[in-house]
Structures are given as structure tokens and as C-alpha cells.
């Protein structure tokens, strides 16, 4: 089986007022794999995510999605090309109900959002799909609650649900387990595994047990640079990686 490259970064550089947050990062994510990006705090993981999803413009370098450059596109057009992301800090629409969070996300690719003369009830055509995604992420019993009233874990689930509405070919998850207890972490692992079917997933993750459970390949970042990249079991034996990051975990 030949696997195509889903997402590729070539020599990405991002400077913030003299500080180089991303320094010549090249990365290749294969279609269908779960690729974890790890690294100590401040290694530039979230900056890299923002570069890949269009929320930041690279100072130099390129990002390609299935061979087409996307680094000059704004985020809302990158989604249309098939790349959807979640955020590290739960990012939902607090004043809408859980189900309306789904509906407003599902209507985005249709021609409905431009129509200020159309009754809201027209969105019901998207209702079954909304209910299905909510069931998939484990929020099937909470459609009417305000997103603002959800627990931290539930917001993380809704967050992933919102990303899934775009039916992305490539899904970027920024620390999906952050701030969760072990039970929540296990739920997220199962959820990521489920949504990864037929998709490419890139995730930033601190929790090494999550990475070892899920990742096919990993990329280790340090000081904005790629320290190592490859299959999980290979990279974890790399002495530089052990020294920089994994070492502490291995001894723990």
C-alpha cells in the first residue's frame, strides 16, 4: 500500500518580534495515520498548529494539504479544503445550546448562513446529522444545555464534535485531554480512535500514555525545531529525545 502525504510542512519559520517560535520545521503527515506532536512547554507546538491551520502566517516556508499550498489562505478557506482543528482551550459557542453549536457548524458549508430572510427552522434539515455527531462524541443526552453550562470534559467533547461537523480529511487536535481526569482521558482516547477511522489525525499531546496508545508516528519539537520524527517506538529510543523530554517520563 502506498500512502500519500496528507499534510506537509516545508521549512516553516515563524518569528515574533525577534523571537523565533518555529525554526525550520519540516513535517510530513501520511494519509490515514495518527501523528502526535510532542515537546516540552514552549517548544512551539501550538504555534505550529496555528501555522498549519492558517491562524498564523509563516515568516517563511510552506504548508501543503494533499499537495496543494494552503499557507496563504485564511482559516475559513482552509477548512473548506478539508482541514479542521480544535483548540487547546475549549472553544465552543457558550451562548448557544449544545445542539445549536452543532447546527451552526453544520450549516457553515451550505448556502444557508448568507440567508437572513430564511426561518431558523430550515436548519432542522441538518438536525439528524447534528444528533448523530452528538451521540458519537458522547453528548447525545445534553442537546438542550447551554454550552456555557457544560463541564470541562463535556466542553472538550463538544469541541471535538464541532471540528467533526466539517467532515475533515485531516483533523488537528490541540491537547484533547488537557485538564481531564483518567476516566475522561480514556474516553477521549476511544473517541480519537473512532474519529480517526478514514481520517488523518494530528494531535498535540502532553500525556505520554495517550501518545503511546494512539500515535502511529510522532514528531518531537524542542526550541521550535524538530528534534526527531518517525515511528513512536523508534523515536522513544532516540537518545536526544530521551534526554530532552521522554527521559523524565521513562523514569517516572
Amino acid at each position, binding site marked *: 500500500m502506498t500512502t500519500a502525504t496528507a499534510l506537509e510542512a516545508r521549512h516553516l519559520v515563524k518569528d515574533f518580534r525577534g523571537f523565533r517560535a518555529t525554526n525550520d520545521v519540516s513535517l510530513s503527515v501520511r494519509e490515514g495515520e495518527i501523528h502526535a506532536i510532542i515537546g516540552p512547554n514552549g517548544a512551539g507546538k501550538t504555534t505550529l498548529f496555528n501555522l498549519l*491551520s492558517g*491562524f498564523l502566517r509563516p515568516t517563511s516556508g510552506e504548508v501543503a494539504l494533499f499537495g496543494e499550498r494552503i499557507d496563504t489562505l*485564511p*482559516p*475559513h*478557506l482552509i*477548512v*473548506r479544503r478539508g482541514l*479542521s*482543528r480544535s*483548540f487547546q482551550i475549549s*472553544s*465552543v*459557542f*457558550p*451562548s*448557544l445550546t449544545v*445542539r*445549536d453549536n452543532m*447546527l*451552526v*457548524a453544520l*450549516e*457553515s*458549508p451550505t448556502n*444557508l*448562513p*448568507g*440567508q*437572513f*430572510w*430564511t*426561518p*431558523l427552522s*430550515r*436548519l432542522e434539515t441538518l438536525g439528524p446529522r447534528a*444528533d448523530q455527531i452528538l451521540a458519537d462524541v458522547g453528548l*447525545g*443526552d445534553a*442537546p*438542550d444545555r447551554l454550552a456555557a453550562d457544560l463541564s470541562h470534559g463535556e466542553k472538550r467533547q463538544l469541541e471535538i464534535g*464541532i*471540528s467533526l*461537523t*466539517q467532515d475533515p480529511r485531516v483533523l488537528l487536535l490541540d491537547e484533547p485531554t488537557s485538564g481531564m481526569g483518567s476516566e475522561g482521558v480514556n474516553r477521549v482516547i476511544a473517541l480519537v480512535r473512532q474519529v480517526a477511522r478514514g481520517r488523518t489525525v494530528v494531535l498535540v499531546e502532553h500525556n505520554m500514555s495517550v501518545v503511546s496508545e494512539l500515535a502511529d508516528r510522532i514528531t518531537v519539537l524542542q526550541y521550535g525545531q524538530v528534534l526527531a520524527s518517525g515511528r513512536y517506538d523508534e523515536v522513544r529510543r532516540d537518545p536526544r529525545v530521551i534526554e530532552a523530554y521522554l527521559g523524565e517520563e521513562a523514569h517516572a
Partner: protein
Amino acid sequence: MTVLPRTAARTERQRMTRAAWLIGLGLVLLILPRLIYPVLALDILAWGLFAVAFDLLFGFSGLLSFGHAAFWGTSAYVTAFLLSHGQGVPVAMLGGTGAALLLAVPIGFLSVRSIGIYFSMITLAFAQMISFVALQWTDVTGGENGLQGFARPGFLGLDFSDSTTRYYFCLAVFAVGFYVAYRTVRSPFGQALQAVRDNEQRAQSIGYNPTRFKFTAFLISATLAGLAGSMFTFGHGVVSLDVLNWRTSGEVVMMTLLGGTGTLFGPVIGAGLVLLLRDVLTTANLPVGIVTGLVFVLVVLFFRRGVVGTVQHWLRRR
């Protein structure tokens, strides 16, 4: 499956609440000229629609315009100008409203990319520019004197020299304007607009271009503010520089907050309360500014959701 019935029940209850507000407000507006003098009643309609227009932008897209007098005032002047040049009432009012929309294109284009206080300041700056132009361009605006003494020719057999007739004509116009605002808010567009307001970054990440939504909302809001301004001119038969004053922009903010932002019904009630209070205070020879200011401070401190927002919140908790 327990999900569907609960969603349905909730939607049903919300619909009932909205219907109750709508019927209540409609009834009051229908008999209003019997309760208070018609010119004041008409003022409530005009300011009420102005506040609804403001709420559409502030309550649903989070943009606090501090220059909405530009649209209200420009339309008021254009309406007066057209009437004094022999145009009929419908042409004059539509002309004023259209002028507000045209003005909103450049102002909106240049302002909606800014957020928070910057947006407020840019809109204020534009409104001050318009106000200055009106003061200087005396040939058209009458400068300090304003425009007055123009005819309001009747049409469809309506006699506009009668203030009650003018009121009911404006009530019909108000109903159209309110419906447009209501339709906009309760549409897929309105839903997306609220998503952009709630979390712009998240909205972008699911394919929304925030600028486009804010700009559209800005245009609709300015157009409705213009429609309200043309009603104001039509109601009074005079127009003066007050309509472009920055205090006018501030007053509509106050009315909206008083009635409850993001409710559409609230701003109408807020406008009514402010105007009635001012009328009572003026008649009783009391300091209007101090008392209305005090009421406003008390509402902001203790009923932050405004009148309608507080009632709705209370109903929901029960």
C-alpha cells in the same frame, strides 16, 4: 429517544414566550395614542425602531457602535430634504433609508475589522464627521436652523396633518422594520452571527468569515436605523442638528441597555421608558439628565440584563 421531545418542548416554550411578548407589545402600541399624546407615541416608535436596529448589531454581533446617529440623522435629513423638494412621503422615507444604507457601506467596510473600543471610536469619529458636514453644508441642511415647514402630502387617502394618522402609518412601517430585524436574528444568518460574536476564532475554524457577517449585520442595522430616522422626521415635521449629535448615539445605547440587549423587544420598551420618563420630568420641571442618568446607573448596577432580559431570566428560572 428522549432527546427529540425535550427539544420540541423547549422550542415550544420559547415560541410561547416570544408570542407573549409580541402580542403584549403589539397591543400596547395599538392603543398607545389613546394613552399618551400621539407625537410622543410616534417618538417611541421611531426611537424604538432605532434601538432595535442598534440591538441587532450590538446584541447579536457584539459590535458597540457609538456612531449610529450618523444613519438615523442622515436619513432624517434626506427625508426632510426630499419632502421640502416636493416628494411624497413614501419616496422621502425610502430615500432617507437608502441614504443610510449607502453611507453604511464605506463606514461599515472601514470599521467592522476593528473590535471593542476601537470599533466604537471609529464609528463615533465617522458620526462626528457627518455631523460637521451637516453643520457646514447650510444650503442643503439649513445649518443651525435645520429644515422645517415642509409639507407631508397624504397618500392612499391618508391625511398626515392628523398626528394620530401619522402614528398609525408609522406603526405599520415600524412593524415592517421590526419584522426584518426579527427575521434576521432568527435565521441561519443570525445563528452564524451569534457564533461569530461568541467566539470569532472558533467560527473561523469552521469556515465562517467573521468580517463578512459583521459587515452584513452592520448594513442591516444601519438601514433600519435610517428607516427609524425617516419616521422621526416624518413625525415631527422638522429636523435639526440634534439628530446627528453624539448624544443621540449615546441615547440609543442607553435605551437598548435599559430594555435588555439581545432581546429585540427590550430596546422598544427601553425607548418607551426613557421617553416617557423624560416627558414626565420635563412637565414637572425636574432635571431630566440627572434623573435619567441615575435610573440608567441603577439598572446597569442591579438589572444588568435590562427590563426584558431580567423578566425572561426570572421566567426561565421558575
